[in-house]
């Protein structure tokens, strides 16, 4: 049949409209059911491709089987007449039709039910079978001769009517997903070349949409899993922090576990190696490690005694500036690494009568706290004489201490950070108290902390 130019262009316009409308509907969803519904509706709707019945089958590559996923359309003449008369009553646009939910209608119809029951094992099909050929050759077939029906699987033949059939592969970008089948039963309008092209384009759209939906679901699931993970992590972190802050016993346990158990594990491990080793150099090295770990434990115990016996042990005239400089020397590496400046403002000759080790301990703890709470910035250390006291100030530009934590900060084993043991300020406040001095802490979050210590001259 020769079409005039006008007819041809009208047809082309219509086809473009169809493609546009269908692909827009498909792109708007990541829901597999919706995608299948739109595809099947587009194949069969009167205002669209106008085929009688359509079905989508999925291909399971591993098992090499094809199974019916979804079908639409009447089973026989009677059902066809009923469905089409109902559709013609409701004058709706294609856009509206593509949006409507098919599930209820399909549940009561025979053809969709039969499609869902189809399972075909490709291994059992002959090479001439069209279903097998679609999967293997990845080609489109348009069957017009009913004698060719012998080359279709038995389970499909059961509901065929003498009509034209198209069978085509459903592709994703990487793989074959299944088969789309459609026929022109009951109305027998011929399936022409332009319909063939439209069906092929529709099948490509569907394949891409199904693949995207799959990606979307995978990403969504990963997102949900990560969210769950993140929540679990938060809960555990909070619980650990709470347990550690809850009781002095809990805090002490944490302290001893970390400070004593770790060296013990190392000592025990290396001792066992020595008991099994023959090489003298290995034995020497391992014994040396054991020695160092034991020294570490001794130092920890010394630290514990520092806050158990806080009375001044050996009082002498202590030059404050000298002590501060000695303490800062210890932190040189960390100060440089974190780009922290030290600003000391003390008269050369300020001195006080005290135990030098304890004064060092105070300054060591205060400076160490400041460094831990900072990244870049300045620590100002100053001292001045105020009546009968020396006021020593350590002021940093660090992240500060939460207001609610300040009243507790000198309690033993109280720490605002996981992994902190909360002994530093406890030691400081006890030493200061022993000297009948006074401790003041002011802090503003994100701005910094100032600690003032008053010690009698």
């Amino acid at each position: 049949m020769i079409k005039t130019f006008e007819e041809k262009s009208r047809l082309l316009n219509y086809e473009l409209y169809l493609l546009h409308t269908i692909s827009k509907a498909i792109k708007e969803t990541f829901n597999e059911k919706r995608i299948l519904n739109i595809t099947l509706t587009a194949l069969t709707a009167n205002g669209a491709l106008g085929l009688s019945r359509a079905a989508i089958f999925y291909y399971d590559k591993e098992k090499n089987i094809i199974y019916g996923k979804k079908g639409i359309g009447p089973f026989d003449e009677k059902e066809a007449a009923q469905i089409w008369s109902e559709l013609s009553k409701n004058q709706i646009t294609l856009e509206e039709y593509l949006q409507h939910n098919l599930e209820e209608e399909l549940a009561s119809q025979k053809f969709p039910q039969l499609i869902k029951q189809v399972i075909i094992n490709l291994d059992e099909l002959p090479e001439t079978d069209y279903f097998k050929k679609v999967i293997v050759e990845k080609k489109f077939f348009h069957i017009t001769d009913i004698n060719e029906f012998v080359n279709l699987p038995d389970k499909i033949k059961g509901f065929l009517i003498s009509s034209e059939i198209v069978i085509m592969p459903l592709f994703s970008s990487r793989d074959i997903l299944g088969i789309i089948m459609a026929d022109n039963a009951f109305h027998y309008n011929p399936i022409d070349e332009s319909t063939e092209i439209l069906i092929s384009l529709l099948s490509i759209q569907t394949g891409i949409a199904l693949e995207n939906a799959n990606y979307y679901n995978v990403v969504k699931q990963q997102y949900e899993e990560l969210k769950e993970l993140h929540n679990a992590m938060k809960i555990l972190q909070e619980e650990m922090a709470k347990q550690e802050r809850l009781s002095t016993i809990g805090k002490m346990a944490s302290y001893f576990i970390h400070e004593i158990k770790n060296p013990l594990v190392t000592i025990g491990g290396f001792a066992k190696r020595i008991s099994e080793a023959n090489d003298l150099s290995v034995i020497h090295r391992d014994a040396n490690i054991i020695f160092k770990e034991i020294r570490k434990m001794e130092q920890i115990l010394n630290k514990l005694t520092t806050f158990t016996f806080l009375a001044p042990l050996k009082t002498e005239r202590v030059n404050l500036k000298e002590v501060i400089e000695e303490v800062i020397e210890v932190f040189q590496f960390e100060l440089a690494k974190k780009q922290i400046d030290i600003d000391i403002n003390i008269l050369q000759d300020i001195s006080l009568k005290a135990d030098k080790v304890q004064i060092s301990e105070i300054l060591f703890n205060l400076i160490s706290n400041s460094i831990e709470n900072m990244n870049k910035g300045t620590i100002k250390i100053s001292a001045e004489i105020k009546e009968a006291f020396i006021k020593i100030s350590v002021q940093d530009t660090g992240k500060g201490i939460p207001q609610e934590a300040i009243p507790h900060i000198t309690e033993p084993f109280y720490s605002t950070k996981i992994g902190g043991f909360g002994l530093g300020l406890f030691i400081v406040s006890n030493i200061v108290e022993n000297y009948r001095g006074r401790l003041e802490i002011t802090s503003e979050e994100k701005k910094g902390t100032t600690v003032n210590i008053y010690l009698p001259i």
Partner: protein
Amino acid sequence: MKNKKILLIEDEENERLLYKEELEKEGFSVTCCENGSKAINFIEKEDFDLVILDIQMPQMDGIETLGKMLTKKRNLPIIIYTAYPQYKDQFLTWAADAYIIKSADLSQLKDKVHSILNTK
């Protein structure tokens, strides 16, 4: 067969040495690092078969490290190796494949590594 690769995260230097040498004796290839942020860098650049992680490390805490690792490699097997016995249940419900309490006797750790990596 190529050696299975283990990433060990432990802040104590001597402990690191002990575990590294003992696991290498078992035939594993062991990469060590002393904190969580370095471990994350390693994970991004290299594929490991197993991670052994100490909770309560300086800088990036062990839990945070664990979270970040799982975000990057969801299926990476992880053994929590720690001095703290009290958090076992919480960890096993969501993240780690095993939770082992540190001991001078390393046989439990070695057995677990072998069983996770299917090497014995």
